[in-house]
């Protein structure tokens, strides 16, 4: 449709301003081809260089910058891995989220798979990430927890994912009780994300089983309203520090969505206790708040680089010897006593 612009600019070179997209879209003819051509005029193509993202706090601080680069509508984004030597599990979930965010803003997201180092590509193929984003299909990895996206609350599907994929029986020897305990306690992270976050991309998840260290890792992420803002809104205390809101959220009975007489808000507390008793690690990044539980230590701090949304990073030791929600498992006091 360039003749249309050319005609107008020749006739009114200065006085006539550039038409807005709305003006142009309302102009007939209203055919799909015309609309597509016009939309293309208002698009911007960018190439986003994915840096090396290590599996630590520094790596996590690099993620918000990536989001800033794609934070506008109608972008055609190409993620380029030329500079990337390592991609953490957190970064994998985050990249998937970014791609869906771009697509949700009427843009397109592609990955330059040829720029990917073989080691990284193997990881992305093993967990099915490349498959989700039209990349080269590879062999599913024996110790890779599949990358999944949940657009809406589907607890039964999450139970199946946790039981069959995360705790895959072929590479993990767990007692049925430990398997059930892990599913029950981790499931609540998903329930919280579905219920509270209003995430535009739903909930994304991936993970990894480290055979040498005998650890099991799971990442659950959303780009919705973070815990600090939800607590601030609920308590009508807009100046609360993020660390305080995180501590509050981990207290039993704390919920930002009370329903009648039902007691709620046990999920994070139970998870914390389970992690503590089973010598695992838990890190919850939400906006500028961080809750970290490692063994018996726990800390709630403010971070300088905020994470827009919530990222839960759980690591358990694959050890059948200790598990449970309480240390006094041998005792069986009356339920209601």
């Amino acid at each position: 449709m360039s003749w249309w612009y050319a005609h107008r600019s020749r006739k009114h070179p200065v006085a006539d301003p550039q038409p807005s997209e709305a003006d142009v879209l309302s102009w007939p003819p209203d055919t799909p081809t015309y609309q597509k051509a016009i939309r293309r005029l208002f698009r911007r193509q960018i190439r986003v260089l994915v840096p090396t993202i290590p599996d630590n706090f520094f790596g996590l601080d690099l993620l918000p910058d990536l989001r800033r680069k794609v934070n506008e509508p109608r972008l055609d984004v190409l993620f380029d891995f030329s500079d990337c030597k390592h991609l953490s599990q957190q970064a994998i979930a985050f990249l998937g989220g970014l791609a869906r965010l771009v697509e949700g803003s009427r843009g397109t997201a592609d990955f330059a798979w040829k720029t990917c180092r073989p080691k990284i590509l193997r990881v992305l193929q093993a967990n099915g990430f490349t498959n989700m984003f039209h990349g080269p299909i590879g062999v599913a990895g024996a110790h890779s927890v599949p990358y999944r996206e949940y657009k809406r609350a589907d607890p039964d599907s999450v139970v199946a994912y946790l039981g069959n994929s995360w705790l895959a029986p072929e590479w993990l020897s767990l007692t049925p009780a430990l398997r059930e305990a892990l599913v029950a306690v981790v499931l609540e992270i998903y329930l919280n994300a579905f219920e509270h976050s209003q995430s535009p991309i739903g909930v994304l998840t991936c993970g990894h089983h480290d055979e040498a260290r005998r650890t099991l890792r799971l990442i659950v992420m959303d780009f919705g309203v973070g815990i600090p803002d939800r607590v601030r809104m609920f308590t009508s205390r807009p100046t609360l520090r993020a660390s305080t809101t995180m501590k509050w959220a981990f207290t039993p009975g704390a919920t930002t969505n009370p329903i009648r007489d039902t007691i709620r808000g046990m999920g994070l507390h139970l998870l914390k206790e389970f992690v503590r008793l089973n010598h695992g690690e838990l890190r919850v990044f939400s906006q500028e708040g961080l809750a970290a539980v490692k063994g018996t230590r726990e800390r709630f701090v403010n971070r300088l680089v905020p994470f827009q949304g919530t990222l839960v990073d759980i690591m358990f030791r694959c050890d059948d010897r200790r598990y449970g929600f309480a240390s006094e498992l041998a005792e069986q006091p009356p339920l209601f006593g």
Partner: protein
Amino acid sequence: MPTIQVHTLVGDNCITLEQGEPVYREVHRLLSEGQTVQLDFAGVAVCASPFLNAAIGRLMKDFAPADLEKKLTVQHLTSVGTQLMRKVIENSQRYYHDPDARNALERILDEEVDPTDGTASSDKR
């Protein structure tokens, strides 16, 4: 003694608050009639705390723990489910019968340290 088959009412996975609602209503009705109730979890694979809060925890509001101990029996619940239920009951007891527990959350917010002078905001009031 009436037996409530949780699997029939809910299904394989007892997870959400909504799933706990019919179980709660049924148990509450029978207990209010003075009957002894048996809750059978046979066939249930996974129990999560939101379900247990809605189905069992809420009973603590209207019934004393001693009455529940006598009149509500739980059957075929896995060891993990039993541990979770214990946690839920413990929490509900605190919430409904310990007035101080309700203020605990408020205290956490009041204890916030002011970054400007290092004092707790509650100290200033």
